[in-house]
């Protein structure tokens, strides 16, 4: 088990008191698993990503813990975390376009990072770096270039290489593809899978609001809503047979191939997510949920409806009652290392 998150709660300090952006979230990530984490802006998906690697001063750990390869991550201890960043847990940020410092050459930035981590044998890392650059079709002269001399796609790829250079157990890829065109999106996605396959990274969380890209790269998909997990299942199960009404609405709003932007209307899902300042009790989706009923005023458990498929919905729990009415494609069980390559 690469990553185990247990009852993780993360709050933001605010003048109206702490705002719990991530509320008691638990999930597990198998070795080799690429998990997609999707949700609307403000659903807490990026907060999870941030909490696992860098808590900025306004964030605080409100409860729970995270274990990486069986060792607890010192999430609140910035100094202790610093040593683990890049080496154990690493990040490809959503702002990859602007993540590379503009005034230093790429090679110098990497050298400075290695120095920060006290890595003595830099030659070995360097040759590994060259190998990886070659792998994704970048020339080694790129190390003598500045970030602004690279195209967007190149910058994205350089960022991924940098972030994964020290073979972290967990790579958090935050909205890595949102700023790219479709073909580059695909290339970046494939690169993530390739790196996982080669063991450069042991596991990954791909945070995005773009379900279509997750369908291509993720082994499993977790859907978040208003700070809580709504559903987690294999990619196939989420895209083809979602159970949570929210997931269903999301999938339904996916455009059909060939439809041009101009022609579609912004239907989405009626209503807005609830305020997290005073979140309503019970199911947080119930205001917008067409199936809501009285039971929904209680908080639904994130229950495993069937192996590898968890849902937080009273209606689903009642209907499925632990049974296995929906067929889940074999091999899509998220908990298994043998699921590599699915979803391609």
């Amino acid at each position, binding site marked *: 088990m690469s990553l185990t998150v247990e009852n993780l709660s993360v709050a933001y300090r605010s003048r109206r008191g702490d705002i719990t952006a991530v509320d008691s979230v638990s999930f597990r990530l198998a070795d080799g698993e690429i998990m997609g984490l999707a949700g609307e802006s403000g659903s807490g998906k990026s907060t999870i990503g941030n909490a696992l690697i860098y808590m900025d001063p306004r964030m605080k750990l409100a409860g729970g813990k995270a274990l990486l390869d069986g060792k607890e991550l010192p999430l609140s201890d910035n100094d202790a975390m610093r040593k683990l960043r890049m080496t154990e847990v690493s990040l490809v940020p959503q702002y990859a376009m602007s993540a590379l410092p503009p*005034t230093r050459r790429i090679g110098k930035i990497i050298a400075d990072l290695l120095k920060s981590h006290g890595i003595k044998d830099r030659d070995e890392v360097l040759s590994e770096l060259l190998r990886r650059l070659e792998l994704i079709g970048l020339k080694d002269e790129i190390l003598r270039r500045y970030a602004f001399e690279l195209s967007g796609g190149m910058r994205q790829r350089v*960022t991924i290489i940098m972030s994964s250079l020290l073979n972290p157990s967990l790579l958090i890829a935050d909205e890595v593809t949102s700023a790219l065109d479709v073909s580059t999106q695909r290339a970046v996605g494939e690169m993530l899978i390739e790196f996982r396959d080669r063991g450069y990274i042991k596991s990954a969380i791909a945070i995005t609001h773009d379900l279509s890209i997750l369908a291509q790269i993720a082994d499993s998909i977790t859907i978040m809503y208003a700070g809580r997990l709504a559903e987690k299942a294999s990619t196939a199960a989420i895209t083809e047979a979602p159970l949570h009404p929210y997931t269903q609405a999301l999938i339904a709003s996916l455009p059909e191939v060939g439809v041009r932007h101009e022609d579609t209307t912004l239907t989405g899902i009626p209503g807005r997510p609830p305020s997290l300042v005073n979140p309503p009790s019970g199911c947080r989706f119930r205001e917008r949920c067409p199936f809501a009923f009285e039971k929904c005023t209680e908080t639904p458990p994130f229950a495993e409806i069937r192996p590898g498929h968890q849902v937080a919905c009273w209606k689903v729990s009642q209907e499925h009652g632990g049974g296995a009415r929906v067929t889940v494609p074999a091999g899509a069980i998220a908990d298994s290392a043998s699921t590599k390559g699915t979803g391609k």
Partner: protein
Amino acid sequence: MRRFLSRKLITYLIAFVIGVTVDWGIPRLIPGDPVQAYLSQFRLQPAGYDALYKTMSEAFGTNGSAWDQYMHYWQSILTWNMGVSIGNFPARVTTLIGQALPYTLALLIPAIVLSYILGNRLGAAAARRKGLDNSVLPLGYVFQAMPYPWLALIIPYLLAVVWHVFPLSGGYSNSLLPTWSWTFIGSLLTHWFLPFLTVFLVSLGGWAIGMRNLVIYELENDSSRYLRALGARERVIRRYAYRNASLPQLSGLALQLGVVVGGNIVTEIAFQYPGLGKLLYTAIGNKDYFLLQGIFIFIIIGVLIANFVIDLVFISIDPRTRLSMQGAPA
């Protein structure tokens, strides 16, 4: 790259032509006739007045048709002949500028460069240390908010009038003739110090605050966050932030150095420091529009060169410029 440069060059060329044209117009467009005002001191009867008026107009190039005058002016500029001063008639404008320039350069370049270096250090330090920030920031603002004229009164008041530590004014002691002697150099130095201090202090606040704010912004920007997420030591992150913040500061420095050739009028006036600022002020006071014209050209050339140098420097070091060269917004 070449296209970018040639476009820039054309822009500067147009700016230069406009500048020179405006400059040409200065003594011609102002109401009142400078030659007439000058000659009124001679109290001449009309016949003599007309004769002298003609002589003077030739000297100033204000005779002939407007087009001839304009062409003649271009010819003069291109041959680095800026004509004759009316307030110091018949001294040449280039001579007067040549006398004043060294004082201005010696005053302003060290003041600006030293305040730049020290101010940036202070600002960067303030950005990382709360305690320092609480003292540097308010002090910096106070220095930045001080009107030059005031500082140029307060400093000599304290150091020259009340405490007699430094001479009040001038470029060197009147009792000396400029020579290579230690006495003379010492005199230059003591006279240089107070105006230097004035310019230095005001600039220092500006640089320090600029750097502090920039570094704080840079420490929160994407590349700093990324470095932090990859576990870079805080020291490394600050170094990067400082380096990023140095770019806008550097362009500010280049701009300041560009206008150096205009002198720092207020300081030079307050201390009667014989630089270009004082020359400019004297020209204004004497309504010496021909000298003004010459200084004006000088400033235009200085600013253009500085701008061009900024462009060149930024092309080599600043990513944002390169992006704009590729057509993206700067």
